[in-house]
């Protein structure tokens, strides 16, 4: 019973960390229908930038974090400007592939400037774990989970009510028609990539305060893809709900199935779930269905 509690608690908090990263994906998707496969690499690069500002340049946390976020937003802006803007209106596969190119590019940058390959983020969250009903969770996870929830609420409100958010959703539907309304699509793209960069930076700092800055951040990016798929690509609610579901599946599945199957089943369970769920709900739990009319 205590074990169950532990699995549930770990599952939910870890899952919310996946959600945190997933929000950045959904943001781009909702505003421009671009699947950003460089997400993991963005998280990695921005974590290193955080390391650079705080550990290497020696800025205190309260100064280092804003600098990192600003740098990340700036990079997002550059990315949109140089890479994505020329591809507006091109086949969607080309857009996906170009983000793959960006992924390689970022990995290269990381390897060039931080060849040490792993490092610890400066400590800014207390070390002592927290105990809840006999289960234990480290404060780092609680912080990350809490921030994920706050960001979720913020971006949801932004997209639902802010006119920029609404325009972003319109852009994802039909760029040409948005142009025709005299709305600067390019500005919308810039802004959404800047936001996405900032989100990735926040996610990166929190993630790497948990497990250090390593290439594993890229893999977490991969896992967050399964989160957005499960939740529905265009749904923040989906991302925030699906993260804990994946986390729970990992932990409960690992907790009770490992004995019955091979070890390491924990790492494939999310993907098995995805295949099954997609079969029943092809657009994820909260995704909008494609409007199929002829």
């Amino acid at each position, binding site marked *: 019973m205590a074990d169950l509690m532990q699995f549930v608690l770990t599952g939910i908090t870890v899952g919310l960390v996946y959600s945190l990263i997933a929000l950045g994906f959904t943001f781009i998707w909702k505003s421009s229908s671009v699947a950003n496969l460089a997400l993991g690499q963005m998280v990695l690069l921005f974590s290193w930038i955080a390391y650079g500002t705080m550990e290497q340049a020696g800025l205190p946390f309260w100064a280092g974090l804003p600098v990192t976020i600003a740098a990340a937003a700036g990079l997002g802006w550059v990315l949109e400007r140089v890479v994505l803007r020329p591809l*507006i*209106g091109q086949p969607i596969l080309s857009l996906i592939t170009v983000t793959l190119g960006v992924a390689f590019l970022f990995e290269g940058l990381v390897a060039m400037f931080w060849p040490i390959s792993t490092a610890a983020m400066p400590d800014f969250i207390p070390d002592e774990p927290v105990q809840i009903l006999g289960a234990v969770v480290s404060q780092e996870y609680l912080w990350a989970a809490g921030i994920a929830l706050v960001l979720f609420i913020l971006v949801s409100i932004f997209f639902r009510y802010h*006119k920029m958010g*609404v*325009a972003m*959703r*319109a852009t*994802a*539907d*039909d760029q*040409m*028609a*948005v*142009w*025709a*309304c*005299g*709305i*600067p699509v390019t*500005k919308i793209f810039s802004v959404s990539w800047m936001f996405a960069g900032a989100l990735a930076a926040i996610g990166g700092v929190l993630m790497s305060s948990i497990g250090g800055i390593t290439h594993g951040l890229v893999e977490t990016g991969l896992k967050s893809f399964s989160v957005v798929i499960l939740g529905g690509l*265009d749904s923040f609610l989906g991302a925030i709900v699906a993260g804990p579901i994946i986390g729970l599946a990992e932990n409960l599945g690992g907790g009770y199935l490992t004995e019955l199957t091979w070890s390491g089943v924990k790492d494939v369970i999310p993907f098995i779930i995805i295949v099954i769920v997609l079969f029943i709900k092809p657009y994820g739990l909260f995704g*909008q269905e494609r*409007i199929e*009319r002829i």
Partner: protein
Amino acid sequence: MLKLNNIEVAYLNVIRVLHGVSLSVPDGQIVTLLGANGAGKTTTLKAISGLLHVEEGDVTDGNIEWNGERIDRKNAEYIGRLGIVQALEGRRVFEHLTAEENLLVGAFHRKDRKEVKNDLEMVYNYFSRLRNLRNNTAGYLSGGEQQMVVIGRAMMARPKLMMLDEPSLGLAPLMVDEIYSIIRRFNEEQQTSVLLVEQNVRIALSIAHYGYVMENGRVVLDGTADFLKNNEDVKEFYMGLSAVGKRKSYRDVKHYKRRKRWL
């Protein structure tokens, strides 16, 4: 007052589509642009609204003036802020947004929140059907309803010049009448100039003040609506009326065409 002076347009620097088009839209008037498929009507509208640049097209010669200011080198955003909006052909609603959100996107540039609220009300007054559908997903609306959304969206920008591309496409006759009467009302009440592209020549000339006929990228005929309505060529080729003023039957067309082909 919009003026196009002898503009030429080419796509991708090679495909020349317009060969010297001149027209003007005086303030507060409805001007219609008629012509066959591929004549370059849509291209003309895009040249005005600046959307051409998005499609790798360019105004290679001539100029476009809006109240004396040259706008053919300006981008779509700037032109949009001047109060020139275009409703694209083919009911391009934002499918996943609700009808009301679609309308609000039209008002993106406006800062006067109160006024936007009032205008929303105005659009619902024009298109009473939309009022009930305001929270429905636009992608599932019927064709006519989507057309209303598109026109309403253009109205929400409080444009000085509204350009409508084939608003009657695929609409039921009653709906065509309705939309056209709304366009006329809007023009009269708001003093908005309208540039109207149409295939349905009869209805377009019924509300327009002035008209231009385009063919192969050139303006071949222009005149007041009454002049055009009574022009024999317009009657024959665009309204399908024979010399006597009666419409030919589509069943008979076949034989007429065949004969023409063998001759």
